[in-house]
């Protein structure tokens, strides 16, 4: 039987000097608790309790989608330059909070080295995508030489509200790889955070809340994928579902099946790292992941093409 550790009086008083944070959902620019009041315990690698996080329900999904829909039009109507600046500022804010993130990631099982490399990669990825807002149309749009006296042009437009299913890794990079192309495209988002490693996503909500991202543009909720994917995949006011390829195959099939209800577009791409690979060769794993995420074609996936005709005549 292990000897119980006793702490003397001073050290007990010391431990209450820290004020552990209550992690909540992020919806419409605010931090509400899940309407169900249920929670689950997030644990460190050694089993120690780190935080309680909400077990969100379909009602939270409903609220988040409403907020996203309300915010989408004005996000899309900002100039590309403005959106680019706002996304760049997310990087500025994240950069200032490096330590907060690396500390959390270490608790979750990252080596310190991997955590620092990953945060740098996240910042780099945000800056990379910030630069696409006012270029994607130039590279992928077109003026089409139709065989009649018409001026004909094709432009990319946002699709609307996107449901994002985060991979089950502690990786913020993976979640950002799904989020950023959508923001660039002019969509608004509801993100279902990783169930086992929700903290970086919850903390990222603080970054969003303190940068210039308008309320409701990005919403983040925590909980069980098995409880949250059904309502979001069936939701008639969600236009796109985006997720990581590692999603459980049954849930993935559900996404494809339920998307038929309103012909949602469904895209899965590889965005995550496994913790073991990360800790064993962080440099290589992160730079490979970063390289594969720096892909403007992900933006194209979540945009519509609109083609317009106009006569050319005296």
């Amino acid at each position: 039987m292990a000897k119980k550790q006793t702490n003397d009086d001073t050290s007990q008083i010391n431990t209450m000097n820290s004020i552990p944070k209550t992690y909540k959902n992020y919806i419409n620019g605010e931090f509400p608790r899940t309407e169900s009041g249920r929670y689950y315990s997030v644990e460190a690698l050694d089993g120690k309790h780190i935080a309680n996080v909400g077990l969100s329900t379909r009602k939270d999904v409903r609220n988040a989608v409403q907020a996203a829909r309300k915010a989408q039009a004005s996000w899309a109507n900002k100039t590309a330059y403005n959106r680019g600046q706002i996304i760049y500022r997310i990087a500025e804010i994240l950069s200032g909070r490096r330590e907060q993130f690396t500390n959390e990631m270490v608790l979750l099982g990252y080596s310190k080295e991997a955590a620092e490399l990953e945060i740098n990669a996240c910042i780099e990825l945000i800056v990379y995508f910030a630069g696409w807002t006012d270029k994607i149309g130039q590279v992928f749009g077109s003026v089409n030489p139709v065989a009649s006296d018409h001026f004909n042009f094709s432009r990319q437009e946002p699709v609307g509200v996107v449901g994002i299913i985060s991979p089950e890794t502690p990786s913020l990079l993976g979640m950002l790889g799904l989020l950023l192309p959508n923001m660039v495209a002019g969509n608004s988002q509801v993100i279902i955070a990783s169930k086992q490693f929700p903290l970086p996503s919850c903390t990222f909500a603080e970054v969003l809340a303190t940068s210039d991202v308008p309320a409701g543009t990005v919403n983040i909720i925590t909980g069980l994928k098995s409880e949250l994917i059904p309502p979001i995949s069936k939701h008639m006011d969600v236009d796109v579902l985006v997720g990581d390829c590692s999603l459980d195959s049954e849930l993935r099939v559900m996404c494809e099946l339920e998307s038929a209800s309103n012909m949602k577009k469904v895209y899965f791409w590889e965005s995550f790292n496994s913790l073991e690979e990360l800790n064993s060769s962080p440099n290589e794993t992160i730079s490979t992941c970063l390289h594969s995420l720096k892909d403007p074609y992900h933006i194209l996936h979540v945009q519509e093409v609109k083609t317009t005709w106009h006569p050319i005549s005296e």
Partner: protein
Amino acid sequence: MSEKNLSDQSTRSNQASISIDWSYANAPESTSHVTFSKHYGLFIDGSFTEYNENQSFESINPTNGESLYRCTEANKSDVDAAVTAARKAFKGTWGTTSGTQRSHYLYRIARMLQERAREFAVLESMDGGKPIRESRDIDIPLAAAYFFYYAGWADKLAYAFPGKSPKPLGVCAQIIPWNFPLLMLAWKIAPALACGNTVVLKPAETTSLTALKFCELLQDIGLPDGVVNIITGAAKTGEYLVQHPDIDKIAFTGSTGVGKVIQQSIAERQLPATFELGGKGAFILFDDAALNEAVEGIVNAIFFNQGHVCCAGSRLLVQEGVAEKVIDLLKKRMQHLIVGDPLDKNTDIGAVNSKEQLETIQRYVNTGIQEGASCFECSGPLPTSGYYFPPTILTGVSQSSTVVQEEIFGPVLTIQTFRTTDEAIEKANNTPYGLANGIWTDKGSKIFYVGSKLKSGVVWSNTYNKFDPTSPFGGFKESGKGREGGISGLHAYVKLDHNGGMY
């Protein structure tokens, strides 16, 4: 229903009529927070050289004709030092910097320009004469936007050149004019750096100040030494730069005359070169246009920035049926233009950049009158000191008049009429220039038709003098070669294969 006979106004409303003559009091922009030096050296290899009185020249504040500061006239060995520094940086630090890193530097430049925006705006107005409202609302924000835009290309060049592996050209020699000093600097430096080049830039001799302040900003950001070098000076300095054997590219914005001289002087070297030269834009106003907005467009096209705009709509071509109405509306609008101290927030038209330019403008107007034109100028008072010219319109001119053929570069508009669409197109194209034109009509199909026939690099429809970093700008014919802005703006700064660059 009949028109009412309403000559009798209501009588029960008993408001006493007290007509007042309401004018705007002075609203000076504060300059107390702004700092600049009285003497500047050259910015070479990351630091300023020591100022030497014997090698200096003064820069005049056009508001009062007084000396504002002195800077150094770069001689042949200074130019050599600058090119050497640029070459060293290209081979060493900058040449090995990744696109991602380059983008981070350029983003920082954009952000810091935003942070220091007001100071730059005040200095731009003091040095060059343009109204503070223009430098504050247009020049400086747009300069930051060009850096922001090109920052985003630095790590994405493969997408701008599908099928090719773009490489930088090397050391770029850049010469810019005095009409939009900081903005022209941004148009040159941002794409050059994004593509991995290093730069030696010569600002115009009457407007060096914001370029020199920009160097301080580069030091604060920690841009590696030698990536950007600024050498102040006049025509001689420009010559040394263009003739230097170790430059890889020339970018020049200025008059067509000087552009031709440069083109001739590099003939034996087959150097890639882009030129953005003069213009004589036509402002084509159809009878089905939104006339009030068109009149405001005319004001934007020719009177703002004192007409010192290469793409200015300096020739109004108005459809005969609405000519009288338009001229009447224009004259009324001109009466509300305020010519005054550039640092007054209500000033619409600031100072002409220099004594020489003022004399040039006056000469042209005199020639116009001699050749038979009628002249109308806005009647507001002009400041008593400094270089000022009132917004002016010249009617009774024809296609062959000197004032219609030659670029005046001042707030002077010539007015001609036309009858048919094709006539307007012919007149608009009948010039050796081809920088920009404007089309004003409510009919979309006409915009596309006329636009497709105009021989100019820029066509503005129902708007004028609009600039954006994503939008390519440049001229046909003697207005130049190459484009700045957009993906086209990158073409000038890369080499795509063993054949070299695109220009």
